């Protein structure tokens, strides 16, 4: 029990009459990687926002380190959030700041590092993400894939304990997304953070996962092992497997 950093307990979330999450339970253990998959509009981003305290559940609890964040005051919530690193689905870059300033912002505002230290740190991270030479551009001047990478670079700056990635590789070419996954793997080995990845990159992403959660019709289906998904007898999951993994297997066959 004490191992779980994040726990959703009987969480219900609805918008007007649409029930997005219907009494879901989820447990995420320290240092592990959880992949959340599911068709578009099933509530993956909503789940992340609940964990971040950006939305509050209609009922149920969202526990981070055993404390319910849906009942927290702002100051306590900020304290919890210092553990998080987040990549938003849309990137959420500050569009009036340059790439450099975007990545430097968390260091400037939350640490006491000197200008020189910040400069070095940021340039190092930008190099890691293949963004050297673009540091003076503004978000409106870079490509979608580059925005993703800037968002990732920014999220990793404060060496967070918990990383939440909302579709980190959507819009990247296959080599780039492979590189990003390798980067995740290395960064995680180094920093040992817990990560939650929302992704459509199925089944590639499963190599990284310690558990896979598939969201379907307001419910979460949890699999300890990616192979188990194939044996699920839930019709929704079967559909999902056929639509996502089937396609990829098919295209692999066609290449041969």
């Amino acid at each position, binding site marked *: 029990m004490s191992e779980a950093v994040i726990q959703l307990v009987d969480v219900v979330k609805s918008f007007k009459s649409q029930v997005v999450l219907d009494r879901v339970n989820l447990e995420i253990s320290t240092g592990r990687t959880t992949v959340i998959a599911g068709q578009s509009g099933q509530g993956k981003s909503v789940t992340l*926002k609940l964990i*971040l305290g*950006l939305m509050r559940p209609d009922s149920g609890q969202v526990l981070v380190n055993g404390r319910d964040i849906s009942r927290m005051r702002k100051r306590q919530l*900020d*304290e919890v*959030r*210092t553990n*998080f690193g*987040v990549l*938003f689905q*849309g990137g*959420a*870059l*500050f*569009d*009036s700041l340059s790439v450099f300033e975007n990545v430097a*912002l*968390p260091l400037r*505002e*939350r640490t006491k590092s000197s200008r020189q230290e910040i400069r070095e740190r940021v340039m190092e991270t930008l190099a890691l993400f293949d963004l050297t030479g673009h540091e003076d551009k503004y978000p409106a001047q870079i490509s979608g894939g580059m925005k993703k990478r800037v968002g990732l670079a920014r999220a990793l700056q*404060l060496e967070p304990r918990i990383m939440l990635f909302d579709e980190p590789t959507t819009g990247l070419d296959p080599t780039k997304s492979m590189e990003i996954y390798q980067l995740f793997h290395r960064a995680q080995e180094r920093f040992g953070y817990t990560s939650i990845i929302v992704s459509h990159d199925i089944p590639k992403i499963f190599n990284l996962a310690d558990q896979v959660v598939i969201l379907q019709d307001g419910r979460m289906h949890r699999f300890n092992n990616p192979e188990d998904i194939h044996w699920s007898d839930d019709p929704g999951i079967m559909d999902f497997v056929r639509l996502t993994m089937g396609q990829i297997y098919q295209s692999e066959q066609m290449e041969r």
Partner: protein
Amino acid sequence: MILNRIENLGNSTIYHVRDMGRMGLFLAFTVLGIFKRPFRFAALIKEIRLIGANSTVVIFFTAAFTGMVLGLQGYYTLRKFGSEGMLGSAVSLSLIRELGPVLTALMVTGRAGSAMCAELGIMRISEQIDALDCMAIDPFRYLISPKFLATLIAVPILTLFFDVVGIYGGYVAGVKLLGVNPGAYFTGMEHSVLNEDITLGLIKSVVFAGLIAWICTGRGYFVQEIRDAGFGAESVSRVTTQAVVLSSISVLVWDYLLTALML
């Protein structure tokens, strides 16, 4: 039918009460944000430049022509009583007590208030404010309080600038064009303008500045909570228009209230 109406009335009452509560808390957080460390001095300077320095041209022309019109109108009215000598005091009192603060506030609302509202609205819908929250960077300290403080600093200065330019505008119209005695224009002014008048003008301009900054940043920040605003870019444009209208009206209402209170 009747039940429906009662329900609508109830809903809209709840909405407005909530809205006021939200805006009240927003103001409190904004003021608290001014005192949070580290203070963003660079942001304050940038905002003062945006709100203040960039408005000087607009304010200059508004003030010059307002002063000149006052000079003309004042001259024709005062001449009927044979007291053209009072022109200086008439022009300067109306500018310092009323027109300076009000017109400056209205110009700033149109130029800077709308910009603040749209900026925050866009940051809200593109999740940039959520991103700040998630990095545990207080959006009030980081974004909103510098704008608020900058408006409080810039608007009174612009108002003084407006007054001075307006008084010279009146001088040009009255003395240079219509031939009022130049000595009388300025001595009349010196005798009739009291410290109280200047204080009233400054108090007004500070209150107006607070109103503009509060309403415009608040509406932008809450762009997604506002009823019937729609979504996305459309919601930002509607809410910005609404914020400009609301702050202009508030400026005029408070102008009346403050005048009545301090007379």
